[in-house]
């Protein structure tokens, strides 16, 4: 069986859905980061696949950008997370509601 663009896109969608569900359901901040990573990588797959398929490198270039941004995001996010953990001893999302309107 030949692997076509559709397969990649299906994989990307499934991953994206998993990530989305993770974003929605997870209460642990660390797990949320994982879910975000899954989301980002789902788009990366789609970018790379489409880029290859239409023979335009711009997509793959974008994927690299995303990887770079994701890395920095995780770095900043984990830093914040650690600070938060040191302050409160918890990383539960429901506890973070000081922005309540």
């Amino acid at each position, binding site marked *: 069986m030949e692997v076509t663009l559709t397969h990649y896109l299906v994989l990307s969608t499934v991953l994206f859905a998993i990530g*989305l569900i993770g*974003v*929605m359901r*997870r*209460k642990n901040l660390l797990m*949320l980061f994982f879910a975000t990573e899954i989301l980002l990588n789902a788009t990366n797959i789609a970018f790379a696949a489409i880029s290859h398929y239409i023979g335009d490198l711009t997509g793959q270039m974008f994927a690299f950008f995303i990887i770079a941004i994701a890395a920095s995001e995780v770095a900043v996010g984990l830093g914040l997370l650690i600070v938060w953990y040191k302050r409160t001893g918890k990383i539960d*999302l*429901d506890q*973070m*509601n*000081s*922005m*309540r*309107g």
Partner: protein
Amino acid sequence: MEIYLYIALFAPLVGSLFSSLFASSPKTMITGYVASGLLFTSLVSSMILLSYVMGGHTVHVEMMTWMATGDLYIPFGFVVDQVSVVMMMVVTIVSTVVHIYSIGYMDHDKGFNRFFAWLSAFVFSMMVLVMSDNFAGLFIGWEGVGLCSWGLIGFWYHKESATWAANEAFIMNRIADLGMLIGIFMVYWNIGSLQYDVVFEQIGNLPVVVITWIGIFLFIGAMGKSAQFPLHTWLADAMEGPTPVSALIHAATMVTAGVYLVVRSNPIYDLIPNVGLFIASLGAFVALFAASMALVNRDMKRIIAYSTLSQLGYMFVAAGLGAYWVALFHLMAHAFFKALLFLGAGNVMHAMHDELDPFKMGGLRKVMKGTFVMMTLASVALAGIYPFAGFFSKDLILEVGFVEHHYVIYAVLLLTAGLTAFYSFRLVVLIFHGEERYKLFGIHPHEAYKFMLVAMSPLLVLAIIAGAFKMTYYQLVTSLLPDTQYHVHSEMTYWIMTIGTQLFVMAAIAFAYKKYGNWSGVPDGTSTMENRFCYKLLWNQYYIPKFYHEVFSKPYGELSRIAWKQIDLKIVDAIVDGIANFIYRTGENTRDIQNGNLSTMLRWMVFGLIVLVALAVAFSVGYNAVGA
């Protein structure tokens, strides 16, 4: 001559303003003297104008612009011609008498000054009404007399019945005034002017339908002022006012304004004989209708009020049948003897300490000789006995009905003449003859002041001799009004009619003397007569006031409350508040989105994302579909 016109017109206004300066201060005789003196000046000026007009001239002045916009131009213009000068004479004579009489009548009243302010203001309004040379000016006077009538009926404002009657009179007149206003609008938009001379000249060019409507709407106005059925109930209730007011306003002048309007608008009504016939029929009906109510009433002033109503019916018969000069003549004669009758009744009221039930009087002729003579003669004049004023004017109306072949109207009027004689003398007999029933109530009657009787005497003289002026009058007014002579063709018929009428009327008087001459005791509602259906029907004025109360006043009040409590507060305002509340609650409910909980926010974010994607897909599909 203009100067006399202005004096005649504005002297009463000056008197009124002068008196109103003292309105809230205690009684000062000076207001009475000044107001009466100015009224007398007005009378003298009117007489000078009368002699001038009799010389074949008229006076027409335009004082200043009142309203001018677009094509509309309404000045304050006044005209003294053959018709208005007659009205001016009637108004000034009666009001001068009433003013002087009032100095005595209102002697003990706290509102003495205020009374003269209102009374003179009334005369001014009435003069504006009759002297104006256009419909708008007439309307000023028309509303002005309505206002003064309101103030004077409700003069004793601490009495609930008086203020109620005042408001009733004002509102009923306003209903009619709406008709009049519409009539004025029609005249303006069809002719482009409200000046009498222009209107009467061009009215013939309009289609008959339009003229008919103009005639009808103007007559609706006249119906209100002259208290014609079905707007008649206010007149009897208006008797709550002081008696001089009843004499001046509700007998001699204001209520005849409707007749004046029809007479003045004769070029209009001449073109629409159908409306004229309707007016005449209504007049005949009112004549009988009012007379029937007077038969059983036990309130002296109301009896005279019904008799006024009945006589107004006569006038409308004449005016409706095109005999305008006859109507005006009866208006004049009636003003004299009816004012006299009312003033006499005022004397009796004073003597009896405001007792109004003639059954509680009796035998007063011994203590009140002057009043007795005056009221009797006035009643004779009212009954139409030769050679008193009423004979010349009222019999003429009967002849008009006969000559114009409206025999039903004639018959009704003849019957009414009998009734009139009967109830007038029922009143006279009950008050002045028979047993002195007032003694039962511990009242000590006394005659009125001498000068009041002297003041009344001009009216007495006129009530007796006014008929003698008939030919002079006829020659005067027929230069303006259609001069139709009403002669019964055969001399024989004429004499039979005249003598027959006289005999009939005298029989009615005799019957009144026989029935009430030896009356004793006061009816207390137990006699068989008082329990008959007819009696009750008449006693309750055909249940019309009650009907109005149940069908108009009460539902209006109820509806108003519903409009406020149910519709305005519970529907209109509630919807507005509902919308505001909805917005407020929406905000309140969606506040949870901003609860600060990250996971909820993320969920909303995802939800928004999905919606956006869905929209994007939907629109791109739609766009492609259109594009393809």
